[in-house]
């Protein structure tokens, strides 16, 4: 299979913080790829660059044969006007354009249109594929009616597809969190994507809901859509992902099948920690006060940074 | 135009309508005008009314705004007024002209005096001198005091800009040098920009054509900045508040172009007393003009012997030397005052009131 998305040497820097630091990976058509990594590893930032919300410092992103990252001519860069021009929409691809090309995404914190109904949320995503002009809307021509009807049917189709069974006329704010997650995925699908990026779709879901989510993601893949998801729930990822890319410090540190990743010492050290069952949280010991604050300091010292490498030996280990 | 013939049914009171600002930035003048007009109405009624019928005054707010004025004018027409004796802001008065014209209602406009109002409509009469006439008085005064360079400052309102433009044009014709023309934004407090300019250019005379509030501030700030020439201000600035705002000692070389007012006329004390009794306060700017407007209109109806539009217009055109505060009144062909009746007034430091200084006759 050919690569649908190709990320080469992507870099994104905020002041001194290198959020993404030379990231390269590719996504093939119709696969489920998981991106994992410690907190702050740059996963969300990478997503934002790929979907054109952030302007990367350098690197290239090619989606379906089209370049997403544009170069600002050296002349403007020399004048230090590059970013200004880009913020006006020159020399850059807008996220809406990327969506039109067939890449859809969800957000780490839900970003639904809170004052629109569920159905309108999904319909709004069909913006770029709907044939509906100014005059036909104004005059309510047959073409307009046909388009609106098709739009509603498609939207309902997607709502059914994600298993939304509630009232489509409710405002999304009235829905429980889990339902909102579903609507967000339906909305992303309604843009008619070839590639779907999901940022922590299972966060805040309970076990059963996660099962349903996995099932849904597989069905999306079966439609021929490639799915890339960021997740911290290893159970879900091991079961679902066909391939896993592991990030740390904005760079790829591993790439392989779930089984390979699970066994990768680098990944264990940076991200997973020693296997769960082996090293259960020893609550009793903590509760009885046998663990000192120092030990906890050590625990957090080795935290998100994944920096067991900074020398300290986990006190609880 | 013309036609119609008012909403008059022949008996019952004759009602005069008056549009004036009661809200918005010009709202101070509404009450002055209303009370002046009411005084005239009361006096006329005491003398037996007009054509034997009682006179009544209907007042509407125009907020100095076109939309509100049009609604108000339509309301007056609907209420069946015989004649209009209102109009303070030119901008708000302009769109009411066709309404009254079409309804066949003659107008005597007491205050509004932009040249734009002089459109040749048959029923429109202005009893305040127009900008052109007032500017002529100003130029005449400038020549009298031997000024060679003059400046004009206006506040960007219709009346003020009009007056300033007329002044500049006539001063130019008279061979005076125009040092500069400046416009300020009314309602602000800081006029140091013009003050500084006045101080550095030092024209012999500067003509302020706006209202007293800004006028007082400009005089003060310009004096502080070091301007030493003469201040001439237009009739919009003639108010005792002018001197209060400028502060004591700042009004020594301030004079104004103005029409006569009761306190300048001998024997007007009684009028002032009557007014104060009715209104509970002293008369203000345009109280007298409103008073006169009612009397002029009543006289014309009396002369015409009917309230018919054409007859009243003829009556107005036929007035000759009718006695008003501004002197004897006769309308010109374009329905403005023949002389304008402008005089030069200066400020009495004891009372802050404007008193006659020069009647420009000699």
């Amino acid at each position: 299979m050919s690569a649908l998305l190709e990320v080469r040497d992507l870099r994104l820097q905020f002041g001194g913080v290198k959020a993404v630091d030379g990231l390269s990976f590719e996504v093939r058509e119709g696969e489920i790829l998981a991106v994992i990594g410690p907190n702050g590893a740059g996963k969300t930032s990478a997503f934002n660059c790929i979907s054109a919300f952030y302007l990367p410092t350098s690197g290239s992103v090619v989606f379906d044969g089209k370049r997403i990252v544009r170069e600002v001519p050296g002349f403007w860069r020399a004048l230090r006007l590059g970013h200004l021009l880009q913020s006006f929409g020159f020399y850059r691809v807008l996220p809406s354009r990327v969506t039109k090309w067939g890449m859809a995404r969800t957000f780490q914190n839900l970003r639904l249109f809170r004052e629109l109904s569920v159905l309108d949320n999904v319909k709004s995503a069909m913006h770029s594929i709907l044939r509906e002009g100014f005059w036909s809307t104004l005059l309510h021509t047959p073409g307009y009616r046909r388009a609106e009807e098709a739009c509603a049917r498609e939207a309902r189709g997607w709502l059914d597809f994600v298993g939304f069974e509630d009232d489509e006329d409710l405002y999304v704010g009235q829905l429980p969190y889990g339902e909102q997650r579903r609507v967000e995925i339906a909305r992303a699908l309604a843009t008619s994507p070839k590639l779907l990026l999901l940022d922590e779709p299972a966060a805040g879901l309970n076990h059963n809901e996660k099962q349903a989510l996995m099932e849904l993601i597989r069905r999306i893949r079966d439609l021929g859509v490639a799915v890339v998801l960021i997740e911290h729930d290893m159970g879900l990822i091991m079961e679902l992902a066909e391939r896993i890319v592991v990030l740390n410090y904005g760079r790829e540190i591993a790439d392989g099948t779930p089984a390979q990743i699970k066994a990768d010492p680098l990944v264990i050290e940076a991200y997973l920690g020693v296997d769960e069952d082996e090293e259960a949280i020893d609550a009793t010991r903590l509760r009885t006060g046998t663990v000192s604050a120092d030990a906890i300091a050590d625990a957090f010292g080795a935290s998100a940074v994944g920096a067991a490498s900074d020398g300290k030996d986990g006190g609880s280990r | 135009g013309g036609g119609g013939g008012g909403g008059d049914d022949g008996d019952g009171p004759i009602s005069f309508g008056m549009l004036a600002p009661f809200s918005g930035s010009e709202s101070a003048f509404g009450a002055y005008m209303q009370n002046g007009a009411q005084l005239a109405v009361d006096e006329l009624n005491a003398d037996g009314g007009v054509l034997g019928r009682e006179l009544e005054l209907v007042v509407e707010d125009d907020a100095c705004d076109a939309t509100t004025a049009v609604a108000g004018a339509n309301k007056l027409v609907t209420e069946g007024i015989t004649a209009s004796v209102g109009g303070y802001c030119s901008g708000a008065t302009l769109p009411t002209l066709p309404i009254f014209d079409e309804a066949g209602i003659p107008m005597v406009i007491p205050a509004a005096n932009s040249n734009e109002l002089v459109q040749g409509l048959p029923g429109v009469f202005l009893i305040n001198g127009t900008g052109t006439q007032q500017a002529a008085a100003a130029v005449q005064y400038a020549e009298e005091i031997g000024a060679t360079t003059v400046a004009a400052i206006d506040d960007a309102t219709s009346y003020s800009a009009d007056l300033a433009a007329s002044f500049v044009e006539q001063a130019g014709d008279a061979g005076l040098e125009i040092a500069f023309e400046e416009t300020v934004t009314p309602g602000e407090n800081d006029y140091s920009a013009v003050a500084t300019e006045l101080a550095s250019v030092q024209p012999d005379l500067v003509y302020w054509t706006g209202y007293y509030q800004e006028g007082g501030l400009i005089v003060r700030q310009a004096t502080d900045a070091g301007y030493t020439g003469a201040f001439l201000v237009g009739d919009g600035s003639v108010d005792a508040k002018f001197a209060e705002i400028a502060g004591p000692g700042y009004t020594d070389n301030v004079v104004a172009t103005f029409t006569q007012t009761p306190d300048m006329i001998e024997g007007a004390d009684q009028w002032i007393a009557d007014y104060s009794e009715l209104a509970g306060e002293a008369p203000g700017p345009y109280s007298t003009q409103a008073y006169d407007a009612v009397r002029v209109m009543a006289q014309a109806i009396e002369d015409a012997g009917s309230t018919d539009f054409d007859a009243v217009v003829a009556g107005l055109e036929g007035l000759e030397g009718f006695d008003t505060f501004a002197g004897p009144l006769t309308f010109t062909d374009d329905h403005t005052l023949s002389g304008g009746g402008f005089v030069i007034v200066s400020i009495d430091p004891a009372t802050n009131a404007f008193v006659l200084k020069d009647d420009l006759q000699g």
Partner: protein
Amino acid sequence: MMQLIWNGLIVGSFYALVALGYSMVYGIIKLLNFAHGDIYMLGAFVGFFTLSAFGISNETSIPLLVVIMLLSMVTTGLIGVGIERIAYRPLRKSPRLAVLITAIGVSFTLEYGVRQIFGPNPEAFPIRLESSGFDFAGMRITASQLVLVIIAAVLMLVLAHIVERTREGRAMRAIALDPQGAQLMGVNVNRVIATVFFIGSALAGAAGVMAGAYYGSIDFLMGFIIGLKAFTAAVIGGIGNLYGAMLGGLLLGLLESFGAAWFGGEWRDVFSFAFLILFLTFKPTGLLGARVVERM
């Protein structure tokens, strides 16, 4: 030239004083408080009322001015708190524009309320600052201007320090970002917001009295234009940022001074607004406005 700068700075300090309160209130509850300019007007009228009640007129004493100013500040401060309590607090959870409209309603009420009490005519302010001037570095400076600038600068710097550097100031900023979150930190939101209204309104009241004493005339609509100017100044500076509001006020004063000199008084506002629009086009968050980075 120097004179233009000095004139601009004087006007600018008035703008800055009013803009500061504007920016504070905006900063904390995201309200474009259209009634703020009218508080400035109220301040002037409170001073006028008190002085007239004692039969004072044409006074020139600076200590008396300071006393009256403090009195006005307390009064307008309390009025500001009252307005917040009655008209804004019940709407704290409502759409932002609802409060904006209420503010316009409050503005009408204050303006026309004062008009009913004091009448529509401008009044001469009973205290006048001495305005003899001296020349310095090509500028004509009057003593009253110096007094004005000093009072304004002291008030502003003290205030900005409080808000930007202290615990209470942090609480204010926290409320601005997330009132509920701030409550969870133990911040008494009602009290802090009331404090902000008190300080902001007191500043506006002070500015009103100073304007009365400096210019000499007050009227019931005097707050309108300065309200707009203060809003503009607050935005130029980066709305919500107090040093920004001060800078913005001064900058706007200068812009107007130069605009009037270069293009004539009638084009002055066009010049300053055009500058503002261009400026914001390139720097969308104003001079010192925080760049809000929104994460996806």
